[in-house]
């Protein structure tokens, strides 16, 4: 290591320290505390000093580390490559293992109420990720308003179930259909838009739906939300401890002790099945002409037109199919919570789903699962640290982008191969 390099690293890390001081000094150092009904500034210079020290030393270590890494770059990238290789060659086994694990998960000894709730939430995000993967990963349409379809699914499920008393299995496809229609509704005005412009319009669409739900009081009860959404039943058998007179419940029918976990486990399997349907549908449709046309459209729209591929229909089907799965996930959300309000469908939800798809590696189904576990898992693990968990979330994103800039799994397999034919 030459001296010149050493000097510049020290300079660089000192500069980092100054930036850290400027940033954290006012934010962390000057804390206002309420003393006798008055606000008093309480300086915390020790904490600031520690943060600045960590930043400076950390930056210095990174400088040295990356310098050394420069020399063994081949080695470092080969580790990433071998992971990707492993996931590529053993992809089928890993996927099978993951499915088996998720099927037996509720019967694991550690699977208590807390873990089941997290698992259900993760499954919902995985399903949303897979749905959005059709729009972003395959068709290449950056949709920042995906949560709108989630909301449409949830609200249409809730309204059908409350007003008409239809069962879950009737309301679910209807909710998906409605969300799909909204997908087409969004699709038409944005047909000519690409890239940034498309992202902005879809973002606005997401907000429009939320504001509509907030203000259409007669239908949606606005900010009060919809309550009393029927809980799902096991093919007509409700999960209730004290059922109404003459109604058989799940636990009496199967001769089991009543336990609130039964409903949770049922919900878990429900979202697992819905998510797997989304997954298999996507894997299958990718290999059909329409799926190939989506990917071709992502690659080059003008070339598509020159080959007679209808870009309008292709885009609209991508929006509609993606939105439909968002709607399915939304109806599951509604039936699980039994209460929905526009607050559940804010932009941050869209952002998280987009992050899951992009960080997973666009178009990769396994990547969506990995990044969901990574991102949502981190948020949950850091729950006790309150608002710091968003720091962990951001940190995770930065780490993925530094080490795998194209997403966790960025390899794409052709939808059709010649080798099989030979």
């Amino acid at each position, binding site marked *: 290591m030459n001296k010149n390099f050493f000097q510049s690293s020290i300079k660089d890390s000192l500069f980092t320290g100054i930036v850290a001081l400027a940033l954290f000094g006012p934010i962390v150092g000057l804390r206002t505390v309420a003393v006798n009904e008055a606000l008093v500034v309480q300086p915390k210079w020790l904490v600031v000093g520690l943060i600045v020290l960590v930043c400076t030393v950390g930056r210095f270590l990174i400088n040295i580390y990356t310098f050394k890494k420069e020399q063994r770059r081949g080695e470092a990238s080969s580790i990433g490559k071998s992971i990707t290789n492993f996931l590529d060659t053993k992809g089928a086994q890993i996927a099978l293992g993951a499915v088996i694990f998720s099927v037996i998960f509720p019967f694991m000894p550690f699977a208590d109420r807390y873990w089941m709730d997290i698992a259900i939430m993760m499954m919902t995000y995985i399903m949303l990720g897979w749905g959005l993967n059709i729009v972003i990963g395959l068709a290449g349409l950056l949709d920042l308003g995906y949560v709108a379809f989630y909301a449409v699914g949830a609200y249409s499920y809730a309204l059908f179930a409350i007003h008409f008393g239809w069962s879950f299995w009737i309301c679910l496809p209807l909710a998906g259909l409605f969300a799909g229609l909204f997908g087409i509704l969004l699709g038409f005005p944005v047909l000519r838009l690409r890239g940034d412009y498309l992202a902005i319009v879809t973002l606005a669409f997401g907000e429009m739906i939320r504001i509509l739900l907030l203000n259409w009081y007669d239908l949606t009860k606005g900010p009060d939300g919809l309550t009393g959404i029927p809980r799902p039943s096991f093919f007509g058998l409700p999960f209730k401890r004290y059922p109404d007179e003459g109604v058989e419940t799940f636990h009496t029918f199967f001769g089991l002790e009543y336990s609130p976990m039964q409903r949770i486990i049922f919900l878990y399997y429900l979202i697992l099945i819905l998510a797997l349907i989304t997954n298999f*549908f996507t894997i*299958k*449709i990718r290999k*059909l*002409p*329409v799926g*190939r*046309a989506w*990917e*071709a459209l992502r*690659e*080059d729209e*003008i*070339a*598509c*037109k*020159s*080959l*007679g*591929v*209808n*870009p309008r229909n292709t885009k609209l*089907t991508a929006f509609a199919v993606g939105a439909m799965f968002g709607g399915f996930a939304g109806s599951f959300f509604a039936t699980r919570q039994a209460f929905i309000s526009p607050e559940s469908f804010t932009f941050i939800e869209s952002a998280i789903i987009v992050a899951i798809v992009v960080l997973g590696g666009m178009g990769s189904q396994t990547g969506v699962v990995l990044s969901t576990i990574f991102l949502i898992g981190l948020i949950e693990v850091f729950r006790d640290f309150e608002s710091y968990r968003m720091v962990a979330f951001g940190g995770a994103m930065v780490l993925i982008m530094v080490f795998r800039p194209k997403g966790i799994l960025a390899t*794409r397999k*052709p*939808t*059709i*191969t*010649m*080798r099989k*034919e030979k």
Partner: protein
Amino acid sequence: MRDNLLDVENLSMRFGGLLAIDDLSFSAKKDNITSIIGPNGAGKTTVFNCLTGFYKATSGSMFLNKDNKKLDLKKFSDFKVAQKAGVARTFQNIRLFPQMSVLENMMVAQHNKLMIASGFSILGLVNAPSFLKKEKEAIEISKYWLDIINLTNRADDNAGDLPYGDQRKLEIVRAMCINPQLLCLDEPAAGLNAKESAELNKLLLFIKNEKKTGILLIEHDMSVVMGISDHVVVLNYGKKIFEGTAKETKNSPEVIEAYLGTED
């Protein structure tokens, strides 16, 4: 005029104050290679863009003879020119789907018939035998064309990873997969070396002679133009300045003037 594949009559295209094509008329025969040449900015690519529906011509008419029916190309908007009329084209800067495999590129070109075969995806989702049969046929067609350009062994590689010359040829055979009446090639020999452009000539002659597809060719490489063209149209500043056989073109004083300027 019955045996003309394409009749362009009084075509004009205006961009604001610029008249890119000025009252252009020409025709192309079936089983013929018709070349459009001219200095840079003469409006050659604009003619293609009008023909293939990417631009809407300001005035004039374009008729394509398909199965002895006269189709007005102005009635078809962008992708329908390829889908309904059967006019295929390639681009000056290659437009493959670089992240998709060579075979997938060929399959996308057969999208419309496969889409119908897959029952708009419903039959395809349930693996209907009729769809699988059609899909197999499409693979066979792809293989047929890839064999011709010697790319069958690279069928599963990404199109973007191919050498430049192969990408050019792939774009041409991909356009052939839509079964076109007329194939419009925009500078297919650009950037090719002598051996590759000789191969290109062979491929174009094969398409013309065996497939009976009319070819409209924009080209600067005179070895290609003079070697295979049956008919040459010369443009300058959007106007047709000469039309004739390759040999006549070579000796025409107007053409020499357009390319080299006048002698004082």
